[in-house]
């Protein structure tokens, strides 16, 4: 069997390069691959494009990546949260580019990339600034914008359980963008709370099959209620 397990964070992240497009799972504090992101910070990369729901909050995670000058562009749905002050400062100083994408369109562009499709027609953003410049199709009297797939060179995924084949489960709303991002990258890297033996996961309940996972790092057991810890 292929060995997808990386014993060190460095090994899990060694393929990352400058200018890579990196999909980062999570929504709020749930399902964020915090430890992988810290590892990316430590790599000192430059020119990264980060695809995530938001633009980083407070001073850790994506915000730290921004502060350390690793990021050239953010693609997200919610850039201007109060807690995204690092991004705001960088953006206003002209140090980072921004593409705002409606949240459902973001999720669907990722899935579309993962599914090998060339695009999709959505009613979202028709006639708005975020639909401007995109082809509009009228079908049965209703207008749709043509949106393109969004593929990552890498995806950083937070999972609850992983087995040796890379099969994943998630925990509650920490699932969010993680399964679609896992599909949508050339190389998918997982930070899992717990590793279980192959065959221990019920095949009916695997959310992301291991065929979408290239390597994983076991970050430690689930610690409920520990602020900032690996909940998921």
């Amino acid at each position: 069997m292929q060995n997808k397990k990386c014993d060190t964070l460095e090994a899990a992240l060694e393929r990352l390069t400058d200018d890579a497009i990196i999909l980062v799972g999570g929504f709020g504090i749930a399902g964020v691959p915090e430890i992988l992101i810290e590892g990316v910070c430590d790599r000192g990369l430059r020119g990264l494009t980060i695809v995530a729901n938001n633009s980083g909050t407070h001073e850790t995670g994506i915000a730290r990546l921004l502060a350390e000058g690793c990021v050239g562009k953010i693609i997200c749905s919610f850039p201007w949260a109060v807690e995204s002050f690092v991004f705001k400062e960088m953006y206003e100083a002209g140090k980072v580019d921004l593409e705002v994408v409606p949240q459902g369109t973001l999720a669907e562009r990722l899935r579309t990339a993962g599914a090998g499709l060339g695009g999709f027609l959505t009613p979202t953003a028709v006639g708005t600034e975020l639909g401007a410049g995109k082809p509009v199709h009228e079908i049965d009297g209703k207008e749709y914008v043509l949106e393109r797939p969004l593929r990552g060179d890498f995806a950083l995924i937070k999972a609850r359980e992983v087995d040796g084949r890379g099969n994943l489960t998630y925990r509650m709303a920490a699932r969010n963008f993680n399964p679609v991002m896992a599909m949508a990258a050339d190389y998918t890297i997982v930070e899992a709370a717990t590793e279980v033996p192959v065959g221990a996961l019920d095949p009916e309940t695997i959310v992301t099959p291991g065929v979408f996972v290239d390597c994983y790092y076991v970050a430690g057991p689930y610690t409920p209620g520990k602020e900032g810890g690996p909940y998921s």
Partner: protein
Amino acid sequence: MSERLSRDQIAARVALELEDGWLVNLGIGMPTLTVNYIPEGRDILFHSENGIIGMGPKPAREEDIDPDLMSAGKGPVTLIPGGAFIHHADSFAVARGGRLDAAVLGAFQVAVNGDLANWKLPTAKSGSVGGAMDIAAGAKRVFAMMTHTAKDGEPKIVETLSYPLTAKTCVTKIFTDMAVVAVTPEGYVLEEVAPGFSAEDVQAATGAPLAVPDDLKTIAA
């Protein structure tokens, strides 16, 4: 001078509008208050963008707060029995696919054709759209929930938008601190006024004509 409704009073009025068995998305901010006023015995299922179907209220005890169980507004919530977790693409398939019976969304402006503006200020270079455009485009009914006028007194119920569009012709009803206004093919219809306000008071604070039915009601507050 009459008192405008509080945020909680508006929420209580919106809650009455949600029917038994509906699936509902509550936007961040004021709309989230609605959950606290659902009439006893009505089974409303709440959808949250981040893949929660059957979102329940904030946990009663601090120690039951779970960081993996937060609303789209990032507040702690619970899952009702029979709730489910789905991923983000599936969550927006629910929203866009017409399974939301209603979405309650904050608004900067509503136009007489039902156009909604709620994601970006005209002067801003960019905005935080989140799921607003998808949900507004996909829900069966969009309820705009807002103050009747902006802080500077400008009407927010207008003929045409001056704020950036979120979604075309989506708003079906507006709930404010002064009134309930239906958006109909024939224009705005003033359905209810807050206690102490007359139809004329509401019209004076509104940027487009309001039709006033004979049976104009007063919001129970």
